[in-house]
């Protein structure tokens, strides 16, 4: 099983532990990830504020690199925003000839060409749909029995350009968590926005959204929140102390990438999964399952 892998910029920085756990899990499950050669930023939401054609060009350049390689046209990315931009670009290029014409002309300036044909997937899809729950189950060394996890998908992953799942109540991650032996909690805010880059421009708004997400997890006694997007993780993790200060709460809920949970269940070492990089400490959760194996 081989994919072109588009990590996205966050994986080099705030989401370093997402990247570490993805590589560890992929290796353990026999998924080969070939990083897209010389990839560039997808433009996130910021470029759309500046120039739409340019924003499409950024993703089209990455798609062109994958298409030009000729070995496999399946692209996987772990970031909800990159995922949306890549899929949206694909959709706009096929729906709007005017956009396609402009993007084609701009790419040509850099000696590149994209004519479609690349399928972009989220890493969650690769695990659940391609590797499959049966194969994951067969690899489990320490089931996450008794761990209550709020399945938080984030927003863009299920939206118009998103995964093939119920947009209001997706179950892909829930099923994965069950396979790991964990208990997905009732989490009605599973696709509610975390505020994204509003954390930079209107912090008080994003802080309230994060507070609601944490409160909802606490209400069904979640031990942690599982996430699938770098921005969700950073907002909920790095700003949890700000939420507590603002609202007088005492949340202490680890925000763990779903790939880290998969890795723990597969028996991988906590350090290799970057558990120690979580700001709200997640080491206790990791240790709980490590000890159960030794007993």
């Amino acid at each position: 099983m081989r994919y072109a892998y588009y990590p996205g910029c966050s994986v080099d920085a705030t989401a370093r532990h997402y990247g570490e756990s993805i590589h560890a899990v992929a290796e353990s499950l026999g998924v080969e990830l070939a990083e897209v050669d010389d990839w560039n930023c997808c433009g996130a939401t910021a470029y759309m504020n500046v120039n739409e054609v340019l924003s499409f060009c950024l993703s089209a350049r990455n798609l062109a690199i994958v298409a030009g390689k000729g070995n496999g046209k399946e692209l996987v990315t772990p970031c909800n925003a990159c995922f949306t931009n890549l899929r949206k670009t694909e959709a706009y290029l096929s729906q709007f000839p005017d956009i396609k014409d402009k993007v084609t002309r701009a790419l040509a300036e850099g000696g590149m060409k994209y004519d479609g044909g690349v399928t972009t997937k989220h890493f969650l899809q690769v695990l659940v749909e391609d590797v499959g729950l049966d194969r994951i189950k067969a690899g489990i060394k320490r089931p996450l029995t008794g761990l209550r996890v709020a399945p938080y998908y984030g927003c863009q992953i299920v939206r118009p350009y998103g995964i093939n799942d119920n947009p209001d109540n997706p179950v892909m991650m829930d099923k994965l968590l069950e396979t790991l032996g964990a208990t997905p909690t009732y989490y009605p805010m599973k696709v509610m926005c975390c505020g994204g880059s509003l954390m930079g421009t209107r912090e008080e708004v994003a802080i309230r959204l994060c507070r609601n997400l944490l409160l909802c997890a606490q209400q069904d006694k979640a031990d942690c929140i599982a996430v699938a997007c770098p921005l969700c993780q950073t907002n909920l993790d790095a700003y949890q102390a700000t939420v507590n200060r603002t609202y007088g709460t005492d949340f202490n809920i680890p925000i763990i990438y779903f790939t880290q949970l998969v890795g723990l269940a597969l028996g991988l070492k906590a350090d290799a999964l970057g558990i120690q990089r979580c700001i709200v400490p997640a080491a206790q959760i990791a240790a709980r399952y490590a000890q159960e194996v030794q007993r």
Partner: protein
Amino acid sequence: MRGVQQTVLYEEAMDHDFLDEVYGIPGGEKIKDCIQCGTCSGSCPVSWAMEESPRQVFAMIRAGMRDRVLDSLTIWTCASCYQCAERCPQEIKITDIMYMLKRMAIREDRKRSRSARALSGCFVGVVNKYGRNRETELMVRFALSTDPLGSIALAPIGYSLFSRGRLPLTGGSVRDIQGLRKIIAKAQQLGGE
């Protein structure tokens, strides 16, 4: 008897250029299909932080109220989560139209666009330099360009990320940066913004 206060906007006051611009973007024509049902406003996770709800903004667009729309806090509160677009029964690309309104407001230097424009500007600056977003540099640039003193409050957050290896001082770059810059320059010219 008291005089009648005009609360209705008459057709003569419509800014037709504004309408043409909005209808001209890909999928923009669909705004005419809006049935004012309010599904967007009810679905929006941040409508409580807006002065006008998304539904009201769409009514204002169709009334050609350029200033009210482009000076509205609504467009800068949109977090681009696409919930409205996902649910709109008329399949209007609401989020993309919000993006377009943001671009128009930035272009016209509307006062409420400053913070988001600063963030977008810093982001574009970093990406045009390296081809990738170096998050550490973005955070520093943004803090310095908006509120250098106020951003001292962010120091503990920065430190908590830094001490866990999540804010590296360097980062990746695109090798073929010249090629990428040519693409960007051409796209800027073709995008007309």
